[in-house]
């Protein structure tokens, strides 16, 4: 009972909160706060790596679970657990948090104590969402995550930060409230706030109307966060105004909370409604892929462009989830078997691949877009502008920056050999077997993505001759005057290399990562196929 494994999740969860408090209590000087924050963040990172290795994939399912009574009046429990889906995402969270803290230590010099306090608080809430297996707990962490991000954008953001922060807050709040109502609905239907138990009890089974209402309640909550087209318009503003690390965490992890919720809650709890609404999810996903990509092509602000690329890339996640959702019941599976003339096993494998693709896309998008936002931050610190028209010729001036941007941009484009490709491949592989026409529509995005990556980003920023008349106000990263763009310095390289290495590693050898996701995808499919 008292093996360390039994409390590892609690330590993982609360350590960032402890770190936040330590920052407040012990933060005597800025440099001490920075060091403390970076060192403190290594523990959750180490624990998440430990989870990656310690998770017993032969056994599968939820592991390292913890139960405790929490609010007995509400019947809300303290229930934590991890499985093949959440462990890689927790690793992503802790990795990006550590890198963000490390990078921020180099560039944040005002209101340092509050900043690092909020960053730890943010990590605490994100880990909480991935660990929570109780609706109340889940909801609390979900809401807490809004607050630090609101302040990060509102205080350390760009010129229009107030507008962006508010917009971010209100949009996601609308979604949250919808989700809260759905949670209450589930509670009234099943009598429990436990996510696993409630799913097993199948709330509103047999009543498609009510199940759909609850489904849409959750869907709105998650779709605002993903963000799914057409609920995405908060994202470009929030990203453009947020400080670099804020953008990284926002794109890298916060968006994933929405997709994670769909996989953890919606598909297992409402299989019938999932089947019924699957086409909508797939359709919104495919539209997001194409629409987001087209909108990117016309952007003139580098950061805004990458923000829109997130809309497009998260569309893949929706496409994969929706395709799998379409065969969440035995009847739907039979229907697909008859429609496509494939075996049930083949359809199930396709659904598993769709889920793997979605989960991989969540992870890879975190790595890749996280890296892209870091890179945008790196150039912004020097140029103090993100206007694409004012760059050009940086390839010669800043070769290191160019090289890393090339890798990240091509990974984002889905170039085989880098991480992003596998997610696209598996998503489309799954979706083509189940929703072929929407999937075919989505492939337009593959081409348009190449257009905005090459035509807008690489060509505008890097190629050509460097022309000093386009932009005169260059500084070094420390803010001293410079004659032109200067290449990346040590701490920036250290921030970037782990992400770039991950892109290569996953691109060349995706098996370990896919194994985690495949495990949980198969469990989910087995669960819904064996109900009743």
């Amino acid at each position, binding site marked *: 009972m008292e093996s360390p494994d039994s409390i590892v999740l609690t330590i993982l969860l609360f350590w960032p909160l402890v770190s936040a408090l330590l920052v407040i209590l012990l933060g005597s000087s800025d440099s001490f706060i920075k060091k403390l924050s970076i060192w403190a963040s290594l523990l959750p990172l180490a624990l998440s790596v430990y989870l990656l290795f310690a998770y017993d994939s032969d056994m599968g399912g939820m592991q390292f679970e913890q139960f405790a009574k929490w609010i007995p009046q509400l019947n809300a429990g303290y229930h934590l657990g991890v499985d093949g889906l959440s462990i890689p995402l927790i690793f992503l969270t802790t990795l990006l948090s550590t890198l963000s803290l490390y990078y921020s230590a180099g560039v944040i010099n005002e209101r340092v104590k509050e900043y690092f306090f909020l960053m730890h608080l943010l990590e605490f809430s994100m880990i909480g969402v991935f660990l929570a297996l109780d609706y109340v707990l889940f909801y609390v962490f979900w809401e807490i995550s809004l607050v630090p991000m609101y302040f990060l954008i509102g205080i350390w953001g760009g010129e229009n930060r107030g507008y962006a922060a*508010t917009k971010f807050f209100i949009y996601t709040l609308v979604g949250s*409230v919808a989700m809260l109502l759905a949670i209450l609905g589930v509670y009234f239907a099943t009598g429990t706030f436990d996510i696993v138990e409630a799913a097993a009890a199948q709330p509103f089974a047999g009543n498609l109307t009510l199940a759909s209402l609850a489904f849409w309640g959750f869907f709105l909550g998650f779709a605002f966060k993903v963000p799914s087209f057409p609920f995405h318009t908060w994202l470009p503003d929030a990203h453009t105004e947020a400080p670099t690390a804020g953008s990284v965490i926002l794109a890298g992890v916060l968006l994933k909370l929405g997709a994670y919720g769909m996989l953890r809650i919606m598909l297992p709890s409402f299989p019938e409604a999932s089947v019924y609404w699957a086409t909508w999810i797939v359709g919104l996903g495919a539209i997001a892929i194409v629409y987001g990509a087209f909108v990117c092509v016309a952007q003139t602000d580098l950061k805004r462009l990458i923000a829109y690329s997130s809309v497009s890339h998260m569309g893949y996640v929706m496409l994969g989830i929706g395709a799998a959702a379409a065969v969440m019941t035995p009847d739907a599976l039979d229907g697909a078997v008859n429609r496509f003339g494939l075996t049930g096993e083949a359809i*199930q494998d396709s659904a598993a691949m769709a889920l793997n693709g979605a989960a991989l896309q969540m992870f890879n998008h975190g790595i890749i877009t996280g890296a892209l936002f870091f890179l945008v931050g790196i150039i912004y610190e020097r140029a103090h502008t993100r206007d694409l028209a004012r760059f050009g010729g940086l390839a010669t001036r800043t070769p290191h920056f160019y090289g890393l941007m090339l890798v990240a941009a091509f990974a984002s484009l889905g170039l085989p050999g880098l991480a992003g490709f596998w997610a696209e491949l598996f998503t489309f*592989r799954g979706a083509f*077997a189940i929703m072929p026409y929407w999937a075919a529509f989505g492939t*337009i995005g593959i081409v*348009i993505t*190449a257009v905005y990556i090459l035509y807008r980003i690489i060509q505008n920023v890097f190629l050509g001759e460097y022309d000093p008349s386009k932009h005169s106000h260059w500084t070094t990263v420390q803010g001293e005057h410079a004659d032109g763009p200067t290449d990346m310095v040590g701490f920036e390289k250290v921030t970037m290399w782990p992400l770039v290495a991950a892109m290569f590693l996953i691109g060349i050898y995706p098996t370990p990562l896919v194994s985690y996701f495949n495990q949980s995808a198969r469990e989910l499919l087995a669960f819904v196929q064996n109900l009743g």
Partner: protein
Amino acid sequence: MEGLFSVTWVVPIPPFLAFLAILLFLNKNKRGSALTAIGSALISCVLGWGIAFASFFRDHFGDHPVDEAIYAIPTGATELVIGYAVDPANALMLFMVPFLVLMIFIYSSGYMSFPHHLKAEQYPTAYAQGKDPRYSRFMAYICLFATGMLGLVVANNLLQFFVFWEVMGLCSYLLIGFWYEKASARAAAVKAFITTRIGDALLMIGLILLYVRSEPSTLRFSELFTKTNLDQLAQTLVDLPLFGEVHWISLIGVLIFCGAIGKSAQFPLHIWLPDAMEGPTPVSAMIHAATMVSAGVFLLVRMFPIYEFSGKVSGETLQFVAFIGAFTALFAATIAVAQWDIKRVLAYSTISQLGYMVAAIGMGAYVAALFHLLTHAFFKALLFLGSGSVIHGVEHGYHHAHEHAHDDHGDSHAEYIVPRADGVLDTEDAQDMRNMGGLLSRMPRTGWTFIIGGLALSGFPLFTSGFWSKDEILAFAWDGNHQWVFWTLALSAFLTAFYTMRQIGLTFLGRARTEGASHAPESVASMTTPLILISIFAIAGGWFGIPEAFPVLGGAVPNWIAHFLEPYMKYMHLYPHHPDFNFVPLAVSIVVALGGLAAGYLVYGQGLKEGQTDPVARILGPIWWMWHRKYWIDELYNGTIVLITMWLSRFLALFDREWIIDWVVNGVGRVAIRIGDLTSAFDRFVVDGFVDGVGWISDQAGHIARLLQDGRVQTYLLFGMLILAVWLFLNVLPMILTLV
């Protein structure tokens, strides 16, 4: 022997390690990077040749190809296997690719001198060394390129094939745009990547559908091409919108073919390849001869069983393939007749020759397609490298002339531009054949090897490799009664011989027309040695495929390539077919080759006189002009697809920012304001009533109001609350009612 086959997966690794090593450690060391790159290519070549020869000399190799797994990716209950394969088809590629790669690497080490479009004062060190400032980076890129091609060759499944295929796409992008200071190079790079990406997207759909529809679900060649699976794919139907019911195998075949259209630059996606000449010349040789463009045809060779079996249920897919191939062969040959840029002529010639191979696939000529792919790789690499040597020489010639004359080069370029009846001429352009002439005496090694390559390309009878492989395709077309294809290919063969002779005449014969040509020196040994080595293969490569039915020679020299490939074809349930010998195709083949060469010699044999316009342009007039302007295809695309894409993206961006946000959201906000005094009460009602539990929200509301006073956000807030209210009203009420 088994031991040798088991290290096949290592073949692509040395160039990859060299790529990493150069980028990470040798970036400043030009000589070290070149040696690393060449060393890695040498290791790959030795390994590749070892494996290739081991398979050549192994009895019944075609019946026992090698196919091994390296690792697997879980996909539900099944797995996606990544591994390597050796079979007769890729053993031949393992012979050709690493050798040409090695030659090209050696050549590059000499070729990449300081480029003339850069300013010396900006790059003093590189200028002093006489090398390109990004010399090391170039070596790294071509190493990655070699990795891509070798990886593709040894792949044992279509997905892995696709992965390396795209890696090459990346490299071609990076290499075409290598001199990215030039606007034309940048544009060409983007154009190449995006155009091929269109084909690749369709290929990916085809690949995925093949993956979905195969039983068992797989992409491994050995499992895909079982008789049961192919029959099953050929017999099941899919109901497509617009096209009605088609066989799965036909649909998949066409989609995969689209990938080859993009990569092998077939009509209508051929537009990127001529522009790709903006890259340094060794790149052109790599991309346009040995590797990337042949990868498209190699894909068709790999997927040949799909096409063969699709032909059993419906001829349409094969007809489509044959049509595109034959059409492209002629179409590109006509354009090549009217080009001035020495590399562009070769680019269109490549498109045309690839059309030959594609047409061969469409007619079911597996061996002939692969054979022509191999011979073409050698002689076209030779021609490209030769043209690079010519350009290099003429550039030096200009440089030399300027040093001795006045030093005004680069101040104003306008004075060098001469409008002519046969197209605008830049009299300083080292790639324009009108600025050459008489180079055979100045650059004999380059000149004679180029002539050998040219004769092979023209299909000069009996001696050259091009004759045998091209003749095989023509014989197949005649024998299979593909009359239409036959005469199209014959006509393009005539044009091929004609424009090749034109190129030789304009470049090497007659008299020098500019100072650049009259001062051009022969290139260094690191460039000419590869030319000489490759030219041996450009001649002798054909002798391994002399058909047995050929008069006199047939049978005297065994048709080795057919003997080697045919058991493997049987292994894949394909039935090798030998065309019966017929004098008509042979005669046609000889007549068009010699006729084209003779016609070309008559017109261009003495070169052009200084200032003389192209005699053919004078005779053909507007037709020649249409060819010269490439049928205005670029203009057509720019006016349609490109324009629509840009317009759509601007429209959607506007829609996203202006309409959704300002119109819908703010509009709703305005409506809400009209409710007037009620709103604030409503606000409080919503906040207090429903979100009170989360206490901080009211603080936020105050915060928000303070932060923003532009009115916009208040409307947002209202909008948010309004949605909330509607939501509550519509959804929660009934839910609670039911629950109660």
